[in-house]
């Protein structure tokens, strides 16, 4: 079972700079445990006191896991998981080029 996990820039120190890594697990918790095996330290950046960290957002096929059971959210082969930091926004914040 292969699940692609997209890693934000800030966490790529744990993945040797890789933007995406493969993992496996039938739940998000199992997937993160699996990632920890290959990328030690990453789990602690995602989870705090048994729950996702407040400013970490995780999506399974674009849906926020907090509305799918959190760490118990179920995964299937071929799912895509995206990890992102929480940022401020607003409908119609202007288009702002960043860093270019």
């Amino acid at each position, binding site marked *: 079972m292969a699940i692609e996990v997209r890693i934000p*820039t*800030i966490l790529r120190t744990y993945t040797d700079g890789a933007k995406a890594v493969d993992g496996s697990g039938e739940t998000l918790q199992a997937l993160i445990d699996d990632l920890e095996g290959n990328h030690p330290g990453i789990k602690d950046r995602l989870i705090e006191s048994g729950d996702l960290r407040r400013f970490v957002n995780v999506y399974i096929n674009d849906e926020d896991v907090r509305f799918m059971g959190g760490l118990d959210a179920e995964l299937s082969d071929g799912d895509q998981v995206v990890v992102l930091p929480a*940022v401020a926004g607003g*409908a119609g914040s*202007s288009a702002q080029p960043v860093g270019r």
Partner: protein
Amino acid sequence: MTRYDSLLESVGGTPLIGLPRLSPSPDVRIWAKMEDRNPTGSIKDRPALKMIEQAEKDGTLRPGATILEPTSGNTGISLAMAAKLKGYRIVCVMPENTSEERRQLLRMWGAEIVSSPAAGGSNEAVRVAKKIAGEHPDWVMLYQYGNEANALAHEEGTGPELLADLPEITHFVAGLGTTGTLMGVSRFFRSAKPDVRIVAAEPRYGELVYGLRNLDEGFVPELYDASLIDSRFSVGPRDAVRRVRELLELEGIFAGISTGAILHAALGQAAKAVKAGERADIAFVVCDGGWKYLSTGAYEGTVDEAEDRLDGQLWA
């Protein structure tokens, strides 16, 4: 009612427009709440006016006062319009790389602009505004991310309007920024029609936007209450651009890019309803028109080209 005593009186009361070509079937229909029809052309006129009225009522905003707000866009324009008509001074804090159209519009309505460093985006603008507020205790920061009047504008306005126009509503889909629209509309429906599903569409930006963010110093608006939302989707620029173009191509509506992201989530709900063989009437928010975003390049060339151009921009 189509006659008003002043521009401020005309905020809200926007039309709900059916989308027969984008709706998958007569049983699963999609409806656009046209918030671009507000006085300054965006949904933000509702919370801006409500926040000012509330602050006047509780005495924090007195004649001649200075309003301070971290905003890179529509809220600033809405506040500046209301401030001009009501005689307040307004200072907007916005990232230094905000588009020139925005700056010109804000200046025309009389706003003064303080720039915050580009690198931190909106998070940084919020931080700088909070610092300035500390230095000027007499200035009034309405603070849309934490001001209950923001959500209240939708609980008292947007929500009841939707139910009146679409009593059979099953889903409400809106963008997740300050979270005010979703919180307010959800509060209304949780009490008036609790089976309405509340769906959030959150813009997913390019890597450059998230690149420098520290996971321990993120930002979740004070208004946000996850229990008022049923599901939340992350929508990238490619889907947003594709949908905003379909909206114009198939239904003739010219909307801003964030509306494309919201429509994408609405169509996702529609597809689920079709698959489940359920009836659905899905209302989503058209936040504003596309005019202010023409310079982003989202409306020209192929979707691939538009996606490339939006990479690294805060497009919603």
